[in-house]
């Protein structure tokens, strides 16, 4: 651990990685709490995998068409938001076939991304980075985007938390009270997509669900108020990111996978430890 702390002071790339992890934890801890209590984890899985289409498209534009101002993170964000809106619309209008359509969107989104990446020079490295994550690959511009999106998520949740709580708990009551339930649901999915994009930087597409759900699920074991669950989830997520990166540094393991593994072990261990007490 001491060598990791020393490396943080001397290695700006490692410092950026830790900062990116902590920045992602803020949004994912907050939004992940809604995802867990609203039980929309499957929807999040679909959004996270559809994001690959945007990443692939932007990489293809950048490498083959020479459009340099566009970044994979921006592509991921646009694809994530579009997927969230599409899935939300499907849920609101075709609930009977919701799961099949979401699953189809999940695989089609990935397929589009893989096709674009296959047409892009050097795709193997990029594909691996996006699928399993590479926190050390965060650029200063990515960090700025992460902070901006964090601020957006926090402001939205500060103003809308009680409304989101209402639609998560009892949509019928929220509708009776005159809340725009469908619009709030779509907004929640969009914020979820934003959080997913933040987390892809840290743990990658395949492991993103772990970080979005596990901190909130653990926090839910200790608290019975959603606002408290959110604060705890942010803290737990920060702990996983910091601890996982330190472990990965010392063991020379991939950072994303190590963070996700740390979270997974903690999730299994928490109820066991509680049971022993």
């Amino acid at each position: 651990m001491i060598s990791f702390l020393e490396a943080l002071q001397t290695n700006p790339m490692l410092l950026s990685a830790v900062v990116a992890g902590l920045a992602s934890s803020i949004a994912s801890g907050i939004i992940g709490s809604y995802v867990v209590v609203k039980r929309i984890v499957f929807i999040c899985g679909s959004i996270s995998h559809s994001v690959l289409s945007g990443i692939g498209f932007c990489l293809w534009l950048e490498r083959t068409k020479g459009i340099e101002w566009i970044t994979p993170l921006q592509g991921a964000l646009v694809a994530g938001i579009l997927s969230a809106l599409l899935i939300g619309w499907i849920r609101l209008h075709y609930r009977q076939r919701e799961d099949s359509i979401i699953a189809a969107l999940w695989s089609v989104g990935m397929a589009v991304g893989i096709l674009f990446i296959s047409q892009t020079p050097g795709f193997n490295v990029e594909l691996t980075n996006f699928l399993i994550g590479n926190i050390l690959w965060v650029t200063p511009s990515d960090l700025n985007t992460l902070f901006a999106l964090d601020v957006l998520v926090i402001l939205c949740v500060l103003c809308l938390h009680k409304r989101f709580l209402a639609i998560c708990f009892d949509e019928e009551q929220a509708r009776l009270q005159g809340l725009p339930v469908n619009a709030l649901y779509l907004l929640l999915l969009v914020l979820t997509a934003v959080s997913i994009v933040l987390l892809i930087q840290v743990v990658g597409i395949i492991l993103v669900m772990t970080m979005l759900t596990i901190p909130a699920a653990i926090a839910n074991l200790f608290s019975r108020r959603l606002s408290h669950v959110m604060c705890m989830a942010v803290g737990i997520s920060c702990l996983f990111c910091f601890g996982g990166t330190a472990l990965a540094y010392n063991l020379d393991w991939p950072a994303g996978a190590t963070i996700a593994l740390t979270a997974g072990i903690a999730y299994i261990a928490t109820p066991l430890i509680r049971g022993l007490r």
Partner: protein
Amino acid sequence: MNSELPTISLHDVCFSYQDTLVLKNISFLVNPGEFIGIIGPNGGGKTTLIKLLLGFLKPLSGSISIFNQMATLPRQQIAYVPQSLHFDKDFPISVLELVMQGCLSKLPWYGIFRQTDKKKALDALEKVGLLDFQNHPFGSLSGGQSQRALIARALASEPDLLLLDEPTASVDTQAEGDIYRILKELQGKMTIMMVTHNLQAAIELFDRVICVQQTASIINPEQLCEHFVHGLYHTPLIKLQKPIPL
């Protein structure tokens, strides 16, 4: 509450789920301050009627007018207590947070409830005897306490019309008595419509009873036994009544 106009006015309302006709030519008026019971067999259309009044469903034909306005959401003068709330017992929400949801229509854009609304929620909790449970998780309450909390949520919105869909269906006898006591205290202060299978309560509490069995017929509580004798209901409900003189 406007004392001159009827609170609810239904005229020739029909409703069907796809090809199944559930309600046919329903017409009735409910006056301000009345306590109306809705009874009828399972599948007779009681809950559908409540959902039409709430504006969650739209009638196939006919008109529904509440407070002299056509049925359109939102209707913040209306509060609703469901039969039971299907929710995750581990959902992180306190009893006070649940009751505050009755004040959501007055929530400012910045998302912090005003003190006056919080006071209304606390008053409602006191009225149903759950003030000491305000910080408890809602999932930790018993069935009867949960229903009382849902009644408190309805009362926090200070409604003119309270709709209840079998609020005592899944609670024990003592909790049922508590709920009827609360409703009796509310009688006359607002218009109340309640779906129930409890015929004794129908006789003791309600000003009028609406029998819903695809069509609706208005009867007085004292007429209830006569109607059941004529085979309106199935056996278990008849058993709840006094022995039928042969």
